[in-house]
């Protein structure tokens, strides 16, 4: 039963319950105490009162803090609750963490537009956008505890102190832990507003910035961590789909009657782009899928050949009419005329696929009356926190309950809802039975949504003193911001700059892929810088040092990375170092050391050094893990990964044709130095990956005098360059 009056006598609640939730409004910070015996009631209250439950306290001192972000390995299950616990002065060893209910109005961080709210784990924004929200909520929770203790002891609040989950009144030598305060909790009225200035100074942090084990790791080593793919429900059926390998093609099933009679097949569902099968078991569904005979129509992608399209892109880049202007500073045309030396180069980037280890999947249960639904999913959430399900079912968002699970990798792929929508469409057919939709690995590749193929044409000019005075960067490709992001050079002092995007359209499904356009665009920018430095006989670090003279934070990462890597020291014969600077929220300089097997064309990365300025580092070990992972994913994509398309058809199906980096290929060390800072935290998940292509290519240039300008640097391409 839901109470009709949310303001019902709170003491009554408290008496009947051994734990309370502290509701804290995001605006106005009005806390409420509510018994947590009824989750539904909490949700209703949260909705009607627009208050946020961030923490649940129980008398035994256990507390649960809600994490509003998805956990895909980036550590939100630890870093966000840590911020809350920091300001609450909680005993971290008693803190449990749960995913917050998926209600953006309540738990959302700041959306893209001011005044909007979003639960969206993308763009490395999590820590950045929740840093203040979580700390203010924690401080408010602490304030309520202090207020209640002051009342109970009848002492002034400002004589109380807190530490590690205990309130102390030094004057009377009394102490009470937070759990014991639960039955005594009272709300201050009116409530003090927590201002930024009331929060701890970074120097006072007890938990933030310390070595803290990640909360969810024990569950990830004993098999108990639950991913959506692990959900099993009574009476559950299975759905699979054949989507073909020609994006946008329409299927015609030619052996429907045969499929219908196969063991376990319950239904066949035709979508505009796929044939879906619902069966009693997964193996039956997959078996039926294998037997499908489908005629596919042509599509907009039919004439697309990924390796030939570069010719078209080159022509597009050569047209005099510019595309959409992304950045304009000074006058590049005039500067190029004045330049004493000019440079031009084209960089190419093939399609890459997310290949997150957990293939896409979801479980959806639609109620018999089709008026509500439950969704179990690993999702990076989305602009629509209910993941498109309400629209499909024609029901209000509050009728859809999303149970967020751990994500077996996201990298941008799980910020798209296609698989959740598919699952809903199938589940509606069998309502009220729950349905698990499984993508096979083959589905994941052939019907992937790729980082777009792109071409970058750079034209740059230096003056007689060798100063870089003009830099124009033309991006040709499909997908708008997917190819355009990362073209800015905010930390290089180049007086005349132009970045523009020329749109191509190939009918291929595209999506944000870790670091998005930063990978390809930094590749073009950072390699051009080295090619110029190389041509002018200037050391690449020295060259960047000049360019960064107005950006002390960026420069500090450069100097530190140079120091870490012993940039000016002697390198072993056959090896060389290459440098790259990347900004993606945080600022980082990466330096790698490579060697090349000139017979096979295999590039070996021996070491990687990174200096990172991410502002306040909430969880340092995790930031290091993100750097390591970012570098290794970068190496994988830069050295090996390539989706190719022939006559519109995706050629790769599984890890035999789309190879990922394996442990044999890792560097000896990846060393990260975190620069001390008290600035607002910036995202770290996407800063390392874009360093890799540029740092490797720049080391290659140093070693061989030849540029690598086409990603990935597969052995055959490397040999071609070496023999050119």
């Amino acid at each position: 039963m839901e109470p009709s009056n949310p303001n019902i006598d709170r003491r009554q609640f408290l008496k009947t319950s051994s734990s309370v939730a502290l509701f804290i409004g995001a605006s106005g910070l009005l806390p409420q105490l509510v018994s947590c015996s009824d989750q539904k009631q909490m949700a209703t209250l949260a909705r009607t009162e627009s208050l946020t439950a961030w923490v649940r306290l129980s008398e035994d001192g256990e507390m649960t803090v809600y994490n509003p972000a998805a956990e895909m390995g980036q550590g939100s299950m630890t870093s966000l609750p840590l911020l809350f616990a920091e300001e609450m002065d909680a005993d971290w060893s008693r803190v449990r963490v749960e995913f917050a209910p998926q209600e953006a109005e309540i738990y959302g961080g700041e959306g893209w537009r001011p005044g909007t709210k979003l639960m969206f784990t993308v763009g490395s924004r999590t820590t950045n956008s929740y840093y203040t929200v979580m700390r203010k909520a924690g401080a408010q929770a602490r304030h309520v505890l202090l207020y209640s203790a002051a009342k109970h002891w009848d002492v002034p609040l400002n004589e109380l102190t807190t530490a590690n989950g205990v309130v102390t009144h030094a004057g009377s030598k009394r102490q009470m832990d937070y759990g014991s305060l639960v039955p005594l909790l009272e709300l201050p009225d009116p409530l003090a507003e927590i201002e930024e200035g009331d929060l701890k100074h970074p120097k006072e942090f007890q938990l933030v910035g310390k070595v803290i084990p990640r909360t969810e790791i024990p569950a990830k080593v004993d098999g108990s961590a639950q991913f959506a793919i692990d959900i099993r429900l009574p009476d559950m059926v299975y759905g699979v789909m054949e989507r073909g390998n020609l994006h946008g093609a329409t299927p015609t099933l030619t052996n429907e009657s045969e499929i219908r009679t196969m063991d376990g097949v319950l239904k066949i569902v035709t979508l505009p782009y796929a044939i879906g099968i619902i069966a009693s078991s997964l193996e039956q569904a997959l078996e039926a899928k294998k037997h499908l005979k489908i005629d596919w129509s042509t599509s907009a992608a039919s004439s697309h050949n990924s390796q030939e399209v570069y010719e078209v892109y080159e022509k597009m880049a050569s047209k005099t009419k510019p595309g959409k202007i992304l950045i304009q500073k000074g006058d590049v045309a005039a500067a190029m005329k004045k330049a004493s030396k000019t440079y031009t180069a084209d960089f190419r980037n093939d399609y890459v696929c997310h290949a997150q280890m957990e293939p896409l999947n979801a479980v959806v249960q639609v109620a018999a009356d089709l008026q509500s639904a439950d969704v179990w999913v690993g999702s990076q959430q989305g602009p629509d926190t209910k993941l498109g399900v309400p629209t499909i079912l024609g029901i209000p968002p509050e009728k859809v309950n999303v149970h967020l699970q751990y994500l077996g990798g996201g990298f941008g792929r799980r910020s798209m809802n296609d698989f959740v929508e598919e699952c809903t469409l199938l589940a509606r057919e069998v309502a009220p039975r729950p349905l698990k939709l499984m993508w096979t690995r083959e589905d994941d590749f052939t019907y992937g949504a790729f980082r777009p193929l792109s071409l970058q044409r750079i034209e740059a000019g230096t003056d007689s003193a060798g100063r870089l005075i003009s830099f124009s960067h033309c991006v040709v490709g499909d997908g708008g911001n997917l190819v355009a992001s990362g073209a800015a050079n905010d930390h290089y002092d180049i007086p005349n700059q132009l970045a523009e995007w020329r749109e191509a359209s190939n009918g291929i499904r595209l999506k944000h892929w870790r670091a998005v356009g930063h990978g390809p665009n930094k590749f073009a920018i950072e390699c051009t810088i080295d090619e110029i430095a190389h041509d002018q006989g200037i050391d690449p670090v020295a060259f960047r040092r000049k360019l960064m003279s107005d950006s002390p934070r960026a420069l500090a990462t450069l100097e530190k990375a140079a120091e870490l890597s012993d940039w000016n020291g002697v390198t072993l014969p056959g090896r060389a170092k290459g440098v790259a600077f990347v900004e993606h929220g945080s600022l980082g300089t990466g330096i790698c050391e490579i060697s090349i097997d000139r017979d096979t064309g295999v590039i070996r990365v021996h070491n990687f050094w990174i200096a990172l300025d991410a502002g306040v580092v909430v969880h340092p070990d995790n930031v290091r893990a993100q750097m390591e992972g970012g570098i290794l994913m970068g190496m994988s994509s830069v050295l090996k990964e390539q989706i190719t398309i022939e006559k519109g058809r995706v050629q790769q199906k599984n890890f035999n044709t789309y190879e990922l980096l394996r442990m044999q290929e890792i560097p000896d060390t990846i060393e990260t130095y975190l620069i001390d800072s008290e600035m607002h935290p910036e995202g770290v998940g996407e800063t390392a990956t874009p360093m890799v292509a540029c740092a490797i290519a720049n080391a290659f240039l140093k070693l061989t005098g030849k540029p690598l300008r086409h990603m990935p640097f597969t052995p055959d391409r490397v040999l071609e360059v070496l023999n050119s």
Partner: protein
Amino acid sequence: MPAYTLTVNGKVHRVEVAEGTSLLWVLREHLGFTGTKYGCGIALCGACVIHIDSQPVRACVLNIEAVSQNQSITTIEGLSESGDHPVQRAWIEAQAPQCGYCQSGQIMQAAALLESNPNPSRQEIKSYMSSVLCRCGTYMRILKAVELAAEQQPQKES
């Protein structure tokens, strides 16, 4: 549908599934041992590594009828009583997992390595562990964890 009997983590289980069903689906979808993961279905990623009679095998390419009741299947859930196998402890100490999806396979592979070679060289670890993919790029820490586990395990009398 034919019935099969399997011994998983020391207990006997009976399932009715079609002949040719992969052991991976039997373990995950029929018996609920969901710690063993699906990643590729063709023996290339190692997400599904389990032990059969102490040998690491890939459940995805093993058909149900290829396993007999007398064989002892161990999944990640059965590797230790309470998640404290030396490899699991080392994994926590190294803070190895990121998304965690590949980690059951990694751990089962590592446990099998140390079972057959308690003191592997770094190169031996890399080559043995290379058959298990991690997209999050946790290899640096996996390597460290295997080395830690090798140091920490009780030294066997030879």
